[in-house]
């Protein structure tokens, strides 16, 4: 198993290199003079030139790329114009908010998708199948931001069930001491259960919005993989051997169906990282997505490339985890490497 992990880590290296190259290209095609951005708004021609040399921007493309990689290795992602701080500090503060939102949504999407998918497969054209159908259709056709707005309009403006959609916590509450950065967990760790409840209320709408788009694909793949598995030759063998229905369903059916589901989960996560930008924008969520969009709009480009790098890195990590789980379930993958 360690060999599998090692192999997958090695396989991720070319991806990482590719991502750095693309991030570099995106930075270089940005309009305007990068040195001028890095030097800051008050820079004179001389300081800009100085910055250019410091950043290695006066060299050939290869030199520039090496200088860029050198910066990355030092953890230097540049300074944000709007906040005036190093991007890496802004990110460190805001990343937990994004992660809390995305991971909860991912968990709900996986759980909901699998439940709906299995239920639909057990009774094609039954009630669960129809519910899954509708959930999936809405997820495919309704834009993320539009669904978020509709939920806000209904549950906040009309029904007033949800709190005001402005960030992680209303200003009337004091946030928990940061331990994990996941406020819900921190609140529980500190025994502040009322705060936990409030945090959940605040999280509910953005998490549902984000999760909705994952439930559809996961349910769809679970359903068809389950139906394929249940009509497969090996389930027929298990039936002919007189195994219990429960054993057949889970140990023979689901165990094999889970492989394509895992694969889809990777794509769903990728999609969520993207949709995350829109959801944070709609719900005023103080994560890195909203931060980056604000930065883009004022032509503050350092956060953009940092954002792309962080997102790609996250994606690689999650896919690595999915690969490992897949290898645990599927012996064919295990021996491929």
């Amino acid at each position, binding site marked *: 198993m360690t060999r599998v992990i090692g192999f997958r880590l090695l396989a991720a290296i070319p991806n990482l290199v590719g991502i750095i190259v693309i991030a570099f290209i995106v930075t270089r095609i940005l309009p305007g003079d990068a040195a001028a951005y890095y030097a800051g708004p008050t820079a004179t021609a001389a300081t800009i030139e100085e910055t250019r040399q410091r950043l290695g921007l006066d060299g050939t493309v290869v030199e520039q790329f090496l200088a860029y990689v050198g910066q990355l290795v030092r953890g230097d992602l540049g300074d944000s114009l709007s906040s005036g701080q190093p991007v890496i500090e802004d990110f460190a503060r805001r990343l937990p908010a994004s992660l809390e939102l995305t991971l909860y949504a991912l968990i709900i999407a996986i759980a909901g998708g699998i439940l709906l998918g299995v239920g639909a497969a057990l009774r094609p054209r039954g009630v669960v199948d129809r519910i899954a159908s509708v959930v999936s259709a809405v997820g495919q056709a309704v834009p993320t931001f539009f669904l978020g707005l509709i939920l806000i309009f209904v549950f906040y403006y009309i029904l007033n069930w949800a709190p005001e959609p402005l960030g992680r916590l209303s200003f009337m509450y004091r946030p928990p001491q940061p331990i994990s950065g996941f406020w819900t967990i921190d609140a529980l760790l500190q025994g502040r259960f009322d705060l936990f409840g409030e945090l959940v209320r605040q999280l509910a709408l953005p998490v549902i919005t984000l999760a909705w788009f994952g439930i559809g694909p996961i349910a769809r793949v679970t359903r068809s993989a389950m139906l394929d598995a249940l009509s497969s030759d090996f389930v027929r*063998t298990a039936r002919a051997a007189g195994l219990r229905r429960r*054993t057949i369903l889970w140990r023979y059916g689901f165990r094999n169906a889970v492989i394509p589901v895992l694969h889809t989960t990777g794509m769903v996560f990728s999609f969520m990282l993207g949709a995350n930008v829109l959801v944070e924008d709609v719900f005023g969520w103080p994560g890195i997505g909203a931060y980056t969009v604000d930065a883009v709009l004022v032509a503050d480009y350092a956060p953009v490339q940092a954002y792309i790098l962080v997102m790609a890195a996250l994606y690689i990590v999650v896919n690595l985890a999915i690969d490992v789980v897949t290898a645990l379930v599927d012996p064919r993958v295990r021996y491929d490497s």
Partner: protein
Amino acid sequence: MNALTAIIEPPPSPLPDSAPLLAVRGLSIFFGGRIVPTVQDVSFDIARGETLALVGESGSGKSIIAHTIAGILASAATVSATTISFNGIELAGKPAAVEALRGRRIGMVFQNARAALSPTLSVGAQIGDVIARHRRLRRTALRAAIVQALASVKIPDPERRAKAYPHELSGGMCQRVMLALAMAGEPDLLIADEPTTGLDNTTQAAILDLLAAEAGRRRMATLFITHDLGLARDYADRVAVLHAGQLVEEGRAATVFDAPRHPYSAKLVRAVPAKAATVADLGGIPGKFPDLSGPVPACRFADRCDRAVDRCRVEVPRLEPVPPDGMAACWRPLG
């Protein structure tokens, strides 16, 4: 109760060996709301220790019959039968009764064994699942039973092979595993659905040798589904020939192979390369199975048969005894 009555009353004993273990009468299977049955009025017996080969070309309905008896017909089909009696237990229209027998008294092996085993469980685990279903065993005893089961189907190095996954084994090895799986419940009847289709001839012979040996040792009845008349001749005691869902001839394997009485069986035999001295002796069969979505002639071979008369198209021929020792469903059997 005194000694005298005890002598007069017959002792309670299992059925005599001559009584069929499996008796099928008037089995018809309808698909998709069709009026014309895909399998029509099929009847046959299998005695303990006997191998009956159900032979037919693709689409003849042989696998459907096997799946129906085992109660694992996948598609929504309507089954009607006068009786499907197994060891005196009526199975027709009683899914619960079949369920109780499946995997224990009735075992089954399929073609394409590698696909018929779950790719994500080791073969030992899959055999273990079946053994654990039939016998309560502790961990170590279960492991021993798994190895024993693999050894009994002549798998070399069973301890190591128990940990292997289907994709790591050859097709022949997978078929042995499936045989071990089917045998785990010590069945009285084994339904072998084209168990060697897709395997090489030498592997096929090894598997069928093993199957025959096991059946002989345990006096197990075997329903052997195959498209290969030659194999049926080599490995079965009796042969039943299916054409388009109708059973056309039944008899001792050598007799059917060497002196078929039904025109279809005769043509089928003439198409077997092993029977032909030269290529000129080979005979094809004109036409194809009738389309079951519309009206069909009473004898479904009538339109392809050079001996057919008007009666063949309007009156279904029943299986009647033909000399020397078989049965044929034909108004004008060869003779």
